[in-house]
């Protein structure tokens, strides 16, 4: 775009100047051709003048030759006459020659040339007639000669004079024509010149206006640029000042960083030791985890054994419960028998009592049987109690075995979970070991890096010093830039652009 604009501005200027040059050249060419034409016409006019002049002198010669021929009659003196004759002859020759020369010299005017040729013919005729006249004079026949003049020579002369006059008219007319042409050419030249001149002036004015505008625009832009330059240089100056302070801060920071690097190196060494000990402890933990896993596997096996045994216990308990029930039944029947025995004993006692003195021994027996049945009853009651206790215990055992089964299941689950946890733990420990290893190696790298940092910090220090120097130079350069902007501004103000 900018290029295009630049080209456009340049192209406009160049085109305008080319236009001016072309217009000037055209004007010059037109003027030159007009002048050429005028010159030519003027030449022709001078030629025509010379022809007129020649014609005038020819007429004078012709008149003089007529006067001479007429004087031949009047002259008495022969010698004088002879002399005049010779003179006349010479005159006639000269006239012929002059007409010939003129006729040959004429070019471009065919009419005039023809009229001159006609005059030559007329002159030759006239000379021939005069020769007749001269013969008459020589013979001394003056009257006849005079008569000849009146009859022959005078009409010829008149004819000649008329022809000359006619030619003169033609010449004058031609001259007038040429003069007119000349005036026209001049007017044309003046018109063209004024036209071209005005075009030139217009072009020049427009170019001037355009250039002035461009100049104003350029100067405005330059002024803006100078403003920006001034501002920018101010900004740059402040920035450089900041940079300068920044550079000093950088120097301080570099010193601090160097100290910090030393500290970090020490820390890295400590971290390395720690990582090493972490690695050792992770290895220990790893073996512990493996042991724990093995123990858990044993626990799982034990749990499974417990499960099997619990199932066995459960079956046994069920059997026990069944046997208990059967014992209960037996006990119940024993109790029933005891009851019946009791009743029988009572009845026996009743009978014995009725027997009176004879039944006394029987009473004792009945009492014994009764006691036995009571004992049996009590025993059955005790057995029943015991059976109840057993039943209760069995029920409790069943509940406990159920709970134990559940507990064993839960324990198995828990152990499996623990196993998983230990697995995860082992994995984590592996990762931790890897991490510790990586930490250790990165610590090594870190320490190596730290060793590299120290010279790098030195380099930074040097670079920052160079930087500070460069900033000083930049400051000076910016000041110069600033003053340059000021002087540019002054120049612009001075030229009032």
């Amino acid at each position, binding site marked *: 775009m900018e290029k295009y604009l630049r080209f456009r501005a340049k192209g406009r200027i160049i085109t305008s100047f080319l236009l001016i040059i072309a217009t000037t050249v055209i004007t010059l060419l037109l003027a030159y051709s007009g002048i050429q034409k005028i010159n030519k016409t003027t030449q022709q006019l001078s030629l025509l003048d010379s022809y007129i002049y020649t014609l005038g002198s020819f007429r004078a010669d012709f008149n003089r030759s007529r006067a001479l021929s007429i004087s031949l009659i009047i002259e008495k003196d022969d010698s004088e006459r002879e002399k005049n004759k010779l003179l006349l002859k010479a005159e006639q020759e000269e006239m012929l020659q002059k007409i010939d020369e003129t006729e040959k010299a004429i070019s471009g005017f065919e009419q005039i040339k023809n009229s001159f040729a006609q005059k030559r013919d007329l002159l030759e005729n006239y000379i021939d007639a005069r020769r007749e006249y001269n013969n008459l004079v020589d013979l001394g026949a003056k009257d006849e000669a005079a008569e000849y003049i009146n009859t022959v020579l005078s009409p010829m002369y008149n004819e000649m004079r008329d022809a000359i006059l006619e030619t003169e008219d033609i010449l004058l007319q031609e001259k007038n024509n040429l003069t007119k042409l000349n005036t026209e050419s001049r007017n044309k030249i003046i018109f063209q010149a004024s036209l071209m001149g005005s075009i030139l002036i217009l072009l020049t004015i427009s170019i001037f206006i355009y250039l002035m505008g461009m100049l104003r625009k350029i100067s405005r832009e330059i002024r803006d640029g100078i403003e920006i330059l001034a501002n920018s240089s101010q900004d740059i100056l402040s920035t450089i000042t900041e940079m300068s302070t920044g550079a000093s801060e950088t120097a301080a920071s570099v010193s601090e960083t160097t100290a910090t690097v030393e500290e970090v190196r020490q820390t890295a060494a400590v971290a390395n030791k720690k990582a090493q000990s972490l690695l050792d402890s992770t290895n220990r933990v790893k073996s512990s985890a493996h042991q724990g896993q093995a123990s858990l596997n044993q626990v799982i096996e034990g749990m499974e054994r417990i499960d099997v045994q619990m199932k066995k216990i459960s079956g046994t308990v069920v059997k026990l419960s069944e046997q208990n029930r059967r014992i209960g039944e037996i006990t119940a029947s024993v109790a029933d028998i005891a009851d019946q025995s009791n009743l029988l004993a009572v009845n026996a006692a009743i009978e014995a*009592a009725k027997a009176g003195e004879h039944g006394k021994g029987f009473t004792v027996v009945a009492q014994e049987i*009764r006691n036995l049945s009571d004992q049996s009853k009590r025993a059955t009651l005790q057995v029943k109690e015991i059976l109840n206790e057993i039943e209760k215990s069995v029920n409790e055992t069943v509940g406990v075995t159920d709970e134990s089964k559940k507990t064993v299941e839960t324990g198995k689950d828990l152990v499996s979970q623990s196993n998983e946890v230990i697995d995860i733990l082992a994995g984590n420990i592996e990762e931790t070991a890897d991490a510790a290893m990586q930490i250790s190696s990165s610590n090594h790298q870190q320490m190596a890096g730290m060793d590299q940092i120290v010279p790098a910090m030195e380099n930074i220090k040097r670079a920052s010093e160079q930087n500070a120097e460069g900033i000083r130079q930049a400051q000076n350069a910016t000041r110069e830039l600033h003053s340059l902007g000021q002087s540019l501004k002054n120049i612009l103000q001075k030229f009032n652009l």
Partner: protein
Amino acid sequence: MEKEQILRHRAAENAMKEIDVMEAIAKPVEVLKFSLLNRLYAMDIKYVSEVSYIREITPIPGTPQFVAGVINLRGKIISAINIKTLFSLEERGLTEQNRLIVLKNNSNIIFGVICDAIGEITKMDLATLEEPPANFPSGLTRYISGIFPDNTILLNANKLTTSNEIIIKK
């Protein structure tokens, strides 16, 4: 002093009563003990024919409320009296645990009374028998001879077997 005198007098009176009872029934007696509602009762064994299970009891319509029904006892049909209803005691229904005491008097009146459990046959001294307290239900006191010191109530079997209330004859 006055109180002491009163107490002495009362003691003497009570001692006199005991002597009276001892004079009235002045010999040991063999009794069958049984229980009703956790209370021990006793009956003179002379009136007891036998004791038995209650295998099956058949209710008889149109009988008094205390007659629980009839029982087949080795081919003999005897009526069973619910003594609790008769004595207006708390009724708890009959179970297999209940026993029947078959009573028999001199005039061959045979019937059974239902008790909760049969106790022992023992000799009791009638001299230790006491009068039943006045607050005993009248339905009970009618058939009570007295109370032994061990709180066993002695039933009057003779009265029971001869009672018009129980023995209904045309």
